[in-house]
C-alpha cells in the first residue's frame, strides 16, 4: 500500500498542505503563517471554483473552447496572455503588500517566519517577471503588432497557441504551489548552492525551475514568431522605416527573446541536472562552480530587463505622438536608439555581480558599457519631450501614465548610473537601494507602460472605452503609491538595510519602512481602482461603445479597423505610402473606402495544440516536481504523439468567402456613414463612437 502511494504520488505527502505545520506544531508563529498560507490556498481554489461555476451557470464552456482556447487568432491569444498577466499581477501585488507589512512591523520581529518571507519574495519576483511582465508585453505585442503592420495574423499561429499554453502551464504551476506547498525560497534568481539539493532538497526549488523553464520556452517561441512576422508579413509599402515605433520595439524585443532566453534555459537546465541526476555544475564540491550559474543567469538577466522595458518604450512613443496630435519627433533616432539599446544590452550583464571578485579592470569595462546605455535612453527621453513640445497635449489616462513614467523613469535611470559605478556598487550591492532602483525602472518603465497600453488599446480590442474616473484615480494612485513605497527604500539602502530581510534590529529603519508600508497601501488602493474601473466599464459598455474603432484619432493602421476587428483584421490588405498611414488616409479623405473587389480570405483553422501543450506541460512539470515519474512519462508521451500527429494534419486552414467579407465590411461602412464624428474636445464624452473628425491641417506637422 505504502509502496503504491509512493509510486503514484512520489514525494507528495500530507506535509505539503499549507496548514499541516500549524496542526503538527501549533505555536503562535506557525499558526499565523499557517493561516496566511491556508487563506492564500483557499483563494486559489475558490477562484478556480468560481470561474468554473460561472462558466457552467452561464453555459459558456463551449464558447470558451471554440472562440478562445482553441482559437489561433492573434488578438484573442493576446487577450488571454493579458488575462493571465492581470491575475498574476493581483497575486504578486498582494504578496508585495504582505512583505511591506512585515517590514513595517519588522523591528525585532514581525509576524512572518523567515521561510514564509522567503517564499513571498521568491514568488513575487518570479511572478512579476515571468508571469506578469512577460505575458503582459507578449499579449500587447500579439494583439497590436500584426494590426499595425497590416497583417492578418502572426507567421505561426499554431506556435502562438503553444506559447500561450506554455505560459499558462507555468502560471498554473506557481498557483498550485500555494495549495501543495512550498515554493522555493531562493529568490527569483535562484542562486546555487542554496538551491542545490544538498541545502534545499524539497520540492520548492523544483517548482521554481520548471515554472521558469516553461515560461522561458514560451518566450523563445514567441520571440521567433514576432521576429518572423515583422520580417515577412508586412503589408505592401510598409517598409521597415515606415513601421510604427511600437513595431520596431517589438522586433528588438523579439530579438532579445531569441538570444537572451537561451542562457536561462541553460542555467535552469544545468541546475535541474544537478538536482535530479547528481551532476556537479554548481555544487560546492567535486569541481562544481556556482559562479558559472551567476554568470549564465545574468547573461539572460540583463537582456531580460530590456525585454521588459522596450515594449513600454514603444507604447509610450505611440501615446506621446497620439495625445499630442503630432507626428513622433525624431523617429529615426528613436529607431537607432532602440537598436543600440538592444545590442548594448548583451554587453553589460556583469554589473549584476560586480562584487563577485573579478579584477577591477573587468568591472570597469562592464561598468562603462552600462553607462553607455544611458546615451540612447537619453535620446529617447528628449525625443518624447520634443514630441509633446508645441503639441496639443491631451491629458488622457495613458498620457498620465506616460508623464509619470517620464519623470520617475529618469530618476530610476540616474540611480542606475550610480549603481553602474563598481566602487559605489560595492557599498550598496544587495541592499534595498538596489530594490528601489529596479522597482523604479520596472514600475514606471514596465507596469505603467502596460497599464497605459491597456487603457489605450482596450477600445480597439473590445469596442468600448474604459471608464475614466476610476481610471484617473488608478493612475494617480499608482504614481503616488509608487513614490511613497519605493523612495524610502533608497534611504534604507544607504542606511545599510539588506534586501530580503525579514526582521531588523536597527530602530533607525523604522520610519522608512513605515512610510513604505503606507505606500503599499496606496498601491493596493490603485489596484482596487483598476478593478472598479474594469467593472464600471463593463457596466457602461453600451454608453462608451466605440464600434467604428478610432476613438483617439489614431495614426497607425490598427485604428483603421472596426472595434473589435474581424478575425482577418483587414478585408483587403492596405497599402502604405508613408509614416502614420491612417492619419494620411484621413486627411486625404481616403479613409473608410470600399475596395474595388473583395477576395476569399484563408485563415488558420482552430487547433487544440495550445490546450494540449498547457495540460501536458503542466502535468509534466508537476510530476517532475513531486517525482511522479509515471505522470512525467505519460504526459511526455502524449505531447510527443500530439506533435507527430500534428505533422500529419492537412487542411489546417479555413476559407472565409469573399461575399461574407464584403457583407461584414459594408455593414461597418454603413455604420461609419451613419456615425457623427467627434472632435478631440469630445473625446471623453459619450458622443465618441470611434469616428474622428478629420484632422485639421494645422494639427499635423
Amino acid at each position, binding site marked *: 500500500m505504502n509502496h503504491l502511494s509512493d509510486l503514484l504520488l512520489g514525494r507528495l505527502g500530507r506535509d505539503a498542505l499549507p496548514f499541516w505545520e500549524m496542526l503538527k506544531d501549533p505555536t503562535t508563529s506557525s499558526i499565523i503563517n499557517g493561516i496566511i498560507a491556508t487563506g492564500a490556498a483557499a483563494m486559489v481554489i475558490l477562484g478556480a471554483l468560481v470561474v468554473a461555476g460561472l462558466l457552467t451557470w452561464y453555459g459558456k464552456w463551449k464558447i470558451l473552447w471554440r472562440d478562445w482556447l482553441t482559437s489561433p487568432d492573434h488578438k484573442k491569444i493576446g487577450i488571454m496572455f493579458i488575462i493571465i498577466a492581470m491575475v498574476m499581477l493581483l497575486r504578486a501585488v498582494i504578496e508585495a503588500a504582505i512583505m511591506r507589512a512585515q517590514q513595517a512591523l519588522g523591528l525585532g520581529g514581525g509576524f512572518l517566519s523567515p521561510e514564509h518571507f522567503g517564499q513571498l519574495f521568491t514568488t513575487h519576483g518570479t511572478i512579476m517577471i515571468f508571469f506578469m511582465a512577460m505575458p503582459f508585453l507578449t499579449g500587447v505585442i500579439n494583439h497590436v503588432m500584426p494590426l499595425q503592420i497590416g497583417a492578418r495574423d502572426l*507567421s505561426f499561429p499554431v506556435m502562438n497557441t503553444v506559447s500561450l499554453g506554455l505560459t499558462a502551464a507555468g502560471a498554473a504551476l506557481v498557483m498550485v504551489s500555494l495549495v501543495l506547498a512550498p515554493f522555493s525560497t531562493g529568490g527569483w534568481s535562484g542562486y546555487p548552492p542554496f538551491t542545490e539539493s544538498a541545502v534545499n532538497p524539497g520540492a520548492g526549488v523544483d517548482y521554481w525551475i520548471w515554472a521558469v523553464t516553461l515560461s522561458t520556452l514560451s518566450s523563445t517561441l514567441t520571440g521567433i514568431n514576432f521576429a518572423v512576422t515583422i520580417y515577412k508579413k508586412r503589408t505592401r509599402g510598409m517598409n521597415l522605416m515606415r513601421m510604427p515605433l511600437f513595431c520596431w520595439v517589438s522586433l528588438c524585443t523579439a530579438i532579445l527573446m531569441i*538570444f537572451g*532566453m537561451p542562457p536561462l534555459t541553460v542555467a535552469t537546465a544545468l541546475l535541474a541536472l544537478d538536482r535530479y541526476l547528481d551532476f556537479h555544475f554548481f555544487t560546492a564540491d567535486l569541481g562544481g562552480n556556482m559562479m558559472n550559474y551567476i554568470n549564465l543567469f545574468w547573461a539572460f538577466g540583463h537582456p531580460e530587463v530590456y525585454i521588459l522595458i522596450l515594449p513600454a518604450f514603444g507604447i509610450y512613443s505611440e501615446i506621446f505622438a497620439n495625445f499630442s496630435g503630432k507626428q513622433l519627433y525624431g523617429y529615426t533616432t528613436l529607431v537607432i536608439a532602440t537598436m543600440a539599446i538592444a545590442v548594448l544590452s548583451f554587453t553589460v550583464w556583469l554589473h549584476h555581480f560586480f562584487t563577485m571578485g573579478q579584477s577591477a579592470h573587468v568591472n570597469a569595462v562592464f561598468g562603462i558599457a552600462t553607462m553607455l546605455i544611458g546615451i540612447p535612453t537619453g535620446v529617447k527621453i528628449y525625443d518624447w519631450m520634443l514630441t509633446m513640445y508645441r503639441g496639443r497635449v491631451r491629458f488622457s489616462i495613458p498620457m498620465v501614465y506616460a508623464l509619470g513614467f517620464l519623470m520617475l523613469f529618469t530618476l530610476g535611470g540616474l540611480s542606475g548610473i550610480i549603481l553602474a559605478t563598481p566602487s559605489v556598487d560595492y557599498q550598496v550591492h544587495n541592499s534595498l537601494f538596489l530594490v528601489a532602483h529596479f522597482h523604479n525602472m520596472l514600475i514606471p518603465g514596465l507596469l505603467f507602460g502596460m497599464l497605459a497600453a491597456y487603457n489605450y488599446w482596450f477600445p480597439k480590442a473590445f469596442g468600448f472605452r474604459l471608464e475614466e474616473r476610476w481610471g484617473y484615480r488608478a493612475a494617480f494612485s499608482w504614481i503616488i503609491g509608487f513614490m511613497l513605497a519605493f523612495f524610502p527604500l533608497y534611504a534604507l539602502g544607504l542606511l545599510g538595510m539588506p534586501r530580503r530581510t525579514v526582521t531588523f534590529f536597527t530602530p533607525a529603519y523604522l520610519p522608512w519602512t513605515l512610510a513604505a508600508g503606507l505606500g503599499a497601501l496606496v498601491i493596493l488602493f490603485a489596484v482596487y481602482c483598476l478593478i472598479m474601473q474594469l467593472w464600471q466599464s463593463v457596466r457602461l459598455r453600451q454608453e462608451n461603445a466605440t464600434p467604428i474603432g478610432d476613438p483617439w484619432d489614431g495614426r497607425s493602421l490598427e485604428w483603421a479597423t472596426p472595434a473589435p476587428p474581424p478575425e482577418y483584421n483587414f478585408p483587403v490588405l492596405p497599402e502604405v505610402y508613408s509614416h502614420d498611414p491612417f492619419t494620411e488616409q484621413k486627411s486625404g479623405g481616403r479613409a473608410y473606402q470600399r475596395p474595388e473587389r473583395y477576395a476569399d480570405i484563408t485563415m488558420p483553422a482552430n487547433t487544440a495544440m495550445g490546450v494540449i501543450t498547457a495540460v501536458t506541460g503542466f502535468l509534466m512539470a508537476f510530476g517532475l516536481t513531486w517525482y511522479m515519474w509515471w505522470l512525467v512519462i505519460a504526459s511526455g508521451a502524449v505531447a510527443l504523439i500530439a506533435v*507527430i500527429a500534428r505533422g500529419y494534419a*492537412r487542411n489546417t486552414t479555413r476559407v472565409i468567402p469573399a461575399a461574407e467579407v464584403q457583407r461584414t465590411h459594408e455593414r461597418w461602412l454603413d455604420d461609419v456613414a451613419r456615425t457623427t464624428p467627434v472632435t478631440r474636445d469630445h473625446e471623453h464624452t459619450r458622443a465618441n463612437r470611434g469616428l474622428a473628425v478629420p484632422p485639421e491641417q494645422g494639427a499635423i506637422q
Partner: protein
Amino acid sequence: MSTQPSRHPGLNLGEPHAEAHSANEEFVFGFWVFMMSDFIIFGLLFATYATMLGGQAGGPGPDELFELRGAFIETMLLLVSSFTFGMASLALKYREDRKWLIIWLLISLVLGVAFIGHELLDFHRMFDKGGVPSRSGFLSAFFALVPLHGLHVTAACIWLIALLGQIAVHGLDHGVKISLTRLAILWHFLDIVWIGIFSLVYLGGLA
C-alpha cells in the same frame, strides 16, 4: 549557382514547387531563427565546458576517457549523412523521384542511428572507466554538452521517420516538402555543432 535569388537558407526548391517554395520563405526562415537560438544554447554549453575543464576533482580526465577512434568514426558517420541528406534534397528538388528520395533518406537515417548507437557505446566505455557525470564538474559539463547534441540527432531521426510516414500517407505534397527542407537544415546544423564537439572536446582534450 541557381538563377533566382535565394529565398531562405538551405536548398531552395524553386519555381516548379511554387506552393512549397513560397511557403518556405516564411517557414524556413522561422526555423532558421530557431536554429540560431539553439546555437546560443550550444555556444554557452561549449563555454561552460571550457570553464569546467579544470574541475576534474581528481577523477578521470580527457586523456583517460576519450578515444580518437570513436570520435573519428562518429565524425565520419555524421559527415557522410550530411552529404546523403543533401542528395535527398536534390532528388526532391529535381526529379520528385520518390524512390531515390526515400533511398537517400533511409541511408541518412541509418547513418544517424549508427551515430547515436556508436555514441552510446562510447558513453558506456566511459562509464566503465569511472567517467560518470556525478564524478566531477568536468564530467558533468561533458555529459551536458555531448549528449544534448545526441538528443538533437535522436529528435531529427524521429522527425525523419515521421516524415517517411507522411510521405506514405500524403505523397510528396507541399507539407512534406516544407518539412523536408527544414529537416535538412537541422541535419546540416547538427553536423556543424559536431565540428565544435570533435574539435574542442575530443581533439582538444587529447592534444
